[in-house]
């Protein structure tokens, strides 16, 4: 908000306050940071940030009060400026020319008016126009400029009606009727509702209370008689109406934040004097001052103990507190170790004791308060075990070569998540996506139910920008759960997802054909990431058909008890083509909350230091015989002293029949009691070869000492 240093100087000696720089520092101390200062002729314009709790500082008088209070300077005595314009007023008194009726006393606590008659068409005085120009306000006409000037002077918004256009000279403050129409000053026809408050004449609404006047009764070049309005409007009502109608004016901005109930007469007096000075005519004697429900002056108490407790400063005194409050316009009276304080009308934000503490400390200066550290305690901890899981996943993925990324969660369920329907279904996603009422982008108004599509987009962006490969992951929330509205947290699911494209094993020493990623990179990553909680042997992998993944090269992973943990696989051709991803692309997602939060317990098991005997066994098998089934067959053979079993090789190609694959097992035998002989190991391998060979479809091709 713009303020003129010259204008402020009318209220306080800004030179004594240190000029523009001094004022800037004082306003900082007061909590009104100056964003910029700009020279404008002999004047300086300050752009000041005013927090929404301080409507009283949205005018030069109020801001000057802050400068004076911080500097300890007196406010100039300007009583005359806001006093009744006695000398200029003559003729019929205002109460004969207009009358005011307040039908909504709680929403309009006070409605004041002054009448100025017989004005000419001269513009505002040069001084007024200069002041307005300094802060960037346009000059329109004497009457409008007078109201604007007073707004920027006192902070009190005013409105000027052409009195002759007010039917019956009547001003009625009432609720709008349903569907009532009013064309406002900006030429827009507004359709009103009973929740809106209007100023009406005998026939129709003529102004939208506290927001904008009506066009039909506005002051024009031909206007001779003016009714100036200054009122106190209910902040919530003004705000609701302004928001519903998409309006925001200097007036509504202030009324929404709470206007100064006490400023009304002075503002009207000043405005009528300025209008007469500019355009001639005379103010009709008398101020019309209608009251709604009483607006009581608030009082509260400030205890010395509370002041010292909150500030942490035992040297603060009630003498200082009284002085500080008095500079800011509060009145107080001492009662032992406390003071009773009357809060001025213009400080709608101050209600309780702690507010007064802030007022005192602002004058004292926050930077003068002492500094200390709260007493030490034991170190903190993570309240949420899942956070620890998340951090470990993050570290694990980064160590495995993936970069952490953050995607916006805004998607369109139908277009972005269509390919993941089956995945959404098995993760119990609600059919109806969680949608944003007021989205930034109407084409992405849903909240994501899986991290995968966004992550694949990021992957593709890297490729599109020229990267040969990329490996990314994200830890974040998805919002597809069947939530209960009264438990907002129930909509969320914590997820980890990864995606990779291009050559994972690229190195000058690796032949080109071996560089691409495949399903087992994806699976291996999941196994590795879950290993702090679940060994690979505790995971069950099941083929799954999700459109986003290649059928037959994607799988879900579960615990042995059948609890779904995640998904991993090769990205489908369609999803790749949609994003121009290269052939070797894989992705996966882990449901973090389903990982047991207790880490695995590791216990020592004795191991044999005797030598091992290793043997390889090869056989051709149908492709649809799974490794899981082969492992089971081996286990069932109960080979003596078998220490470990590995899948050593898988081969398809010449020498292997169509539909079959040649598998080579590597068996390691070891005893904890004695060195095994080759013969006894051979005996066991032969037993296994016979057992396997007896299965239909399996042809053992040989075995050898490895």
């Amino acid at each position, binding site marked *: 908000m713009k303020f003129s240093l010259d204008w402020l100087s009318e209220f306080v000696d800004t030179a004594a306050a240190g000029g523009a720089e001094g004022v800037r520092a004082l306003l900082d101390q*007061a909590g009104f940071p100056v964003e910029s200062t700009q020279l404008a002729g002999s004047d300086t314009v300050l752009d000041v940030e005013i927090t929404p709790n301080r409507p009283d500082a949205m005018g030069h008088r109020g801001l000057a009060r802050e400068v004076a209070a911080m500097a300890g300077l007196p406010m100039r005595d300007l009583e005359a400026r806001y006093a009744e314009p006695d000398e200029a007023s003559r003729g019929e008194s205002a109460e004969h020319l207009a009358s005011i009726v307040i039908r909504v006393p709680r929403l309009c606590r006070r409605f004041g008016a002054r009448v100025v008659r017989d004005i000419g068409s001269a513009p505002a005085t040069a001084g007024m126009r200069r002041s307005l120009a300094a802060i960037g306000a346009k000059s329109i006409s004497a009457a409008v400029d007078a109201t604007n000037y007073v707004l920027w002077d006192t902070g009190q918004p005013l409105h000027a009606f052409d009195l002759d256009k007010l039917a019956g000279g009547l001003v009625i403050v009432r609720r709008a009727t349903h569907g009532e129409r009013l064309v406002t000053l900006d030429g827009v026809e507004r359709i009103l509702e009973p929740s809106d408050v209007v100023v009406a004449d005998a026939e129709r609404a003529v102004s939208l209370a506290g927001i904008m006047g009506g066009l039909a009764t506005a002051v024009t070049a031909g206007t001779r008689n003016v009714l100036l309005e200054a009122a106190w409007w209910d902040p919530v009502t003004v705000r609701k109406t302004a928001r519903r109608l998409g309006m925001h004016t200097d007036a509504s901005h202030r009324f929404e934040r709470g206007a100064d109930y006490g400023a009304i007469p002075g503002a009207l007096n000043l405005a009528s004097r300025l209008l007469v000075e500019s355009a001639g005519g005379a103010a009709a004697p008398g101020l019309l001052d209608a009251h709604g429900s009483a607006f009581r002056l608030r009082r509260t108490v400030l205890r010395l103990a509370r002041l010292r407790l909150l500030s942490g*400063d035992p040297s603060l005194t009630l003498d200082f507190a009284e002085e500080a409050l008095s500079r800011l316009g509060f009145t107080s009276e001492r009662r032992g170790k406390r003071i009773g304080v009357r809060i001025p009308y213009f400080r709608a934000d101050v209600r309780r004791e702690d507010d007064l*503490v802030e007022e005192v400390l*602002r004058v004292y200066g926050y930077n003068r308060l002492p500094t200390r550290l709260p007493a030490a305690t034991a170190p903190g901890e993570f309240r949420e075990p899942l956070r620890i899981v998340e951090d470990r996943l993050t570290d694990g993925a980064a160590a495995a*070569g993936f970069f952490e990324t953050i995607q916006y969660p805004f998607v369109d369920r139908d277009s972005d998540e269509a390919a993941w329907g089956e995945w959404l279904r098995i993760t119990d996603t609600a059919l109806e996506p969680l949608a944003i009422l007021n989205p930034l982008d109407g084409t992405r108004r849903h909240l994501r139910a899986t991290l995968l599509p966004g992550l694949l987009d990021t992957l593709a962006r890297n490729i599109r920008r020229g990267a040969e490969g990329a490996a990314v992951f994200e830890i974040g*929330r998805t919002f597809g759960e069947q939530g209960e509205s*009264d438990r907002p947290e129930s909509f969320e699911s914590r997820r980890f997802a990864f995606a990779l494209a291009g050559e994972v094993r690229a190195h000058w020493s690796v032949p080109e054909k071996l560089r691409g990623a495949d399903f087992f990179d994806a699976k291996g990553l999941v196994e590795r990431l879950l290993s702090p909680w679940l060994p690979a042997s505790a995971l069950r992998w099941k083929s799954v058909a999700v459109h986003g993944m290649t059928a037959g090269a994607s799988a879900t992973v579960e615990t042995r008890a059948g609890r779904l943990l995640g998904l991993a696989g090769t990205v489908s051709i369609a999803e790749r083509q949609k994003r121009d991803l290269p052939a070797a692309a894989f992705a996966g997602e882990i449901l973090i909350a389903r990982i047991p939060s207790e880490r695995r317990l590791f216990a020592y098991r004795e191991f044999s230091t005797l030598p091992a005997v290793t043997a390889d066994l090869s056989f051709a098998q149908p492709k649809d015989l799974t490794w899981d089934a082969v492992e089971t067959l081996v286990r069932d053979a109960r080979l003596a002293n078998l220490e470990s079993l590995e899948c050593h090789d898988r081969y398809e190609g010449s020498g292997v029949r169509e539909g079959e694959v040649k598998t080579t097992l590597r068996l390691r035998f070891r005893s904890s009691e004695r060195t095994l002989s080759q013969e006894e190991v051979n005996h066991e391998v032969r037993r296994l070869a016979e057992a396997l060979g007896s299965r239909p479809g399996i042809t053992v091709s040989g075995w050898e000492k490895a």
Partner: protein
Amino acid sequence: MSNDPVEKVLRSFREELARGVSSRAEFERLKGAYLGREKGLVPQLLSTLKTLPASERAAFGASANAAKNEVEAALAELAGEIQRREAASRDRAAAVDVTLPGRRGHAGGLHPLTVVRRRIEEIFLRMGYSIADGPEVESDFHNFEALNFPPEHPARDTQDTLLLDRPARSPLLLRTHTSPVQIREMRKHGAPLRILCPGRVYRKDEVDATHSPVFHQVEGLLVDRGISMADLKGTVSTFLEELFGKGTHARFIPTFFPFVEPGVDVAMSCIFCKGTGCPKCKGSGWIEIMGAGMVHPRVLQGVAIDPEEYTGFAFGLGIDRVALLHYGFPDLRLLFEGDERFLRQFAGPA
């Protein structure tokens, strides 16, 4: 020239040796020719011993043995030499260009926001704060009302809210700050309490270099007996020094947040110019970095903590902003594009 057969064998051996033996094969031939059990010249010399008259045997035996020792010693030395030469040649064959790139595997890394968040967490964990978490989908109650933002309060204008299209007793929204976690934690644990709540927050902001509808905050809260502004100042100053380095000064000026009273705006001495004024701090020497204040008594009452018994302070700052200042990149959008060329710049140890 002597016709002594021993001399003759030795002479020819020395000549052959002098001609040089370059390969193992040559060595083996030489060794066979002189020491071979059947046809070796030295064993043959020795085998003539028994054909000699007894008087000559002693002298001949001595000289033949000496020759044998010489040949054996020379061949042993030669064997060592050949072995060394072979090893060197094997090493030569196995030599690599040590300046070629090593097999590093793909380097990954943490997002700069994670790095910054963890640094902040570490500082406060040491100060006894526990790390708390809350949902990103929130109720109007937790996000606003309980924090003393009444319905239709203009303070809500400062936080353009993304509202959710789902009927609920208290309207659902995407949290606009991490402050609702304060409410959840105070309701759950009461006082005294020290918590830090990092998290993702949302506002209806169009995307540009300094705005993003998704950003990150960290909120701190300490409630205990006798807590004052002095504690707030000390905590914030210590934190800023730990995060931005010794010599970082904090400045405290009043401001307004509905959930604190008094409210505080914290600026720190510009980390780029050390307070002398530069474009980064718009010449002021100060950079706004945090909001803070004493917890509003209405907020405490709302969570059944007696504000006469307990007082507390809260503070909040933007992680994205800290990252921006810390790493010196110009545009917030870089954080959300997932471009590896950006991300790998922060890929320190995980």
